[in-house]
């Protein structure tokens, strides 16, 4: 029996979601569950692994198998889950704190190792859960509760990082462009090998409030106004691209995943004994 209504994957009794009004997390969650439905994923064969932070609470609302561990380590748990049972669909949900900051090393190595999991990193440019401190993706000069005079450091371009690490699928969407977002998430889940989708999202309560986006709609508009497609970005002069989020698919290629390669290791090792 295949499930194809997205809300069959939603634990409705846990609603309303615990996130603030206008938080992009719910939008991404919806996109993920709709992708599950489109792909007809079996709950028994699907494991959603989450990190810590606002987005790390997403598993509370998902009715597949779930695993919720420690901050930044979701990809580590997911690596074990997937390698020990390659038949599973493993989807890893991380925030920018999880994926690009405390767990940044796990991210690049998971990409390099090419374990067949899908990582969806919701980037709201700050630590929402702990009160809006800066993260590894907070843009230079922007304001957070720990960069009250403007942020000293630069933020990561996480897609470039994952691309450089060798992932076979790397894409970026945002919570405004929901149709594109869902398409990217669905493609990423279907992709064999490490697939990565970064989602530019909003944190109205903290990042938005401190950076001039007074309302949820204002934050959404800010994302809309500051996002450009890959095609457009290619045509724009450098200074006009400054501070813009480039949307689209950066990498989509075929690289044999860890399990396929390791199967050959097993054959070789068994020959020896």
């Amino acid at each position, binding site marked *: 029996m295949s499930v194809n209504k997205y809300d069959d994957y939603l634990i409705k009794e846990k609603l309303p979601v615990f996130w603030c009004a206008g938080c992009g997390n719910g939008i991404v969650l919806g996109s993920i569950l709709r992708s599950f439905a489109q792909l007809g994923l079996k709950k028994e*064969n699907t494991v959603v692994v989450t990190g810590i932070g606002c987005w790390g609470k997403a598993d509370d609302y998902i009715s597949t198998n779930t695993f919720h*561990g420690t901050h930044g380590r979701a990809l580590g748990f997911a690596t074990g889950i997937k390698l020990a049972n390659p038949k599973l669909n493993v989807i890893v949900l991380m925030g920018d704190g999880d994926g690009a900051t405390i767990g940044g090393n796990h991210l690049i190595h998971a990409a390099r190792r090419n374990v067949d999991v899908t990582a969806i990193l919701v980037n709201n440019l700050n630590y929402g859960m702990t009160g809006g401190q800066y993260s590894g993706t907070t843009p230079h000069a922007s304001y957070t509760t720990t960069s009250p005079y403007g942020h000293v450091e630069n933020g990561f371009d996480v897609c470039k990082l994952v691309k450089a690490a060798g992932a076979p699928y790397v894409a970026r969407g945002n919570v405004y462009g929901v149709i594109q977002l869902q398409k990217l998430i669905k493609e990423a889940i279907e992709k064999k090998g490490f697939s990565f989708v970064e989602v530019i999202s909003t944190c109205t309560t903290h990042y938005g409030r401190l950076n001039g986006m007074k309302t949820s709609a204002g934050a959404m508009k800010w994302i809309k106004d500051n996002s450009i497609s890959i095609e457009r970005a290619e045509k724009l002069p450098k200074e006009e691209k400054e501070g813009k989020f480039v949307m689209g698919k950066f990498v989509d290629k075929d690289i044999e995943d860890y399990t396929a390669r*390791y199967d050959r290791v*097993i054959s070789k090792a068994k020959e020896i004994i």
Partner: protein
Amino acid sequence: MTLNNKVKFIQGNQAVVEGAIAAGARFYAGYPITPSSEIAEGSANRLPQVGGLYVQMEDEIGSMAAIIGASLSGKKSYTATSGPGISLMSENLGVAVMGEVPCVLINVQRSGPSTGLATKPAQGDVMQARWGTHGDHGIIVISPSSVQDCYDLTIEAFNLSEKYRTPVMFLSDATIGHLKEKVVLREIAPEEIVNRKQPNCDPKDYQPFKFQDQEDGIAPLAAYGSEYVFRITTTTHDERGMANSTPANADKFIRHYTDKIEKNKKDITIVRKYNLEDADYAIIAFGCTARAALEAVNIAKDKGKKIGLLQLVTIWPFADDEVREVLKKVKGVVVPEMNLGQIIGEVKKINDYGIPVEGLSRVDSLMITPKEILDKIEEVEKCL
């Protein structure tokens, strides 16, 4: 079926790998570190030969995470490291405790703190093994003193881990890890292997943390990918694996993590007794130091002196009944350990008999010698 016994002359670390495979372990994730690296190398070599899997992670945090994940996908999993690695693994050791995930961590202890003397032995991680991760919890820690132990007790570690749905730490040390010695790699009969209890209820009724209705107090653990869909969260959770922060729920589960170990102490703990029946003095020792202690017992015996040894094979839960029995009978106790006094504190805690309990510490990376132990006993004798 006849079981095959292979005699080998190998290192403790290599015997651990053979023990893990014999116990049914098929997944290793780790990060190499002296003096444990032979376990990584041996696992990379041996696991694929039996259809298992080795993955070298980017650090010990990721390694611990990966073995927890693999265990939940139904594979018996383990990792090996030394003290600095345990420091990093301690974070996710808590995950294994809270998620009640069976797995085995091998700590081949070296001299610390920090980088310390990387190639040299120590026994300084006794308390780290007990309390390394934050929060109240029970833990099983086993300490080998021979290469044969490295094989036999690794199997025991996996069995206990599966039986009690808990991480088990195998607290070896650089001496035992690198010691080459005769070992009999017994072929293990299937009935000697414990596998975690599987649910048999209707899948829609399965609750991964419901321990109360189980005779042994341990909830069955399904595997991801089976017909049982389940949730593991290491936020304080209820029986269904749903985050639940009510005080009553927290109290129930936090006590459970300690109780399931402490209440089964009799079943879990292993001690070895040498010459204790009519001993005047006793040595309480573990790990590589137990070998010096045993030598001391033998030397004393040749000289007509009555000295016994209680070897703590299981360090945690602490074998307080057996230690008490010794304290009750002898005139004095010496506790040699390659640290500044960690196990001795536990012995003193239950010394209600007013006998002298003296420590013998060494932290210069050298093994405690039998002579030092005998001298210490003489010292105690003189004070009486």
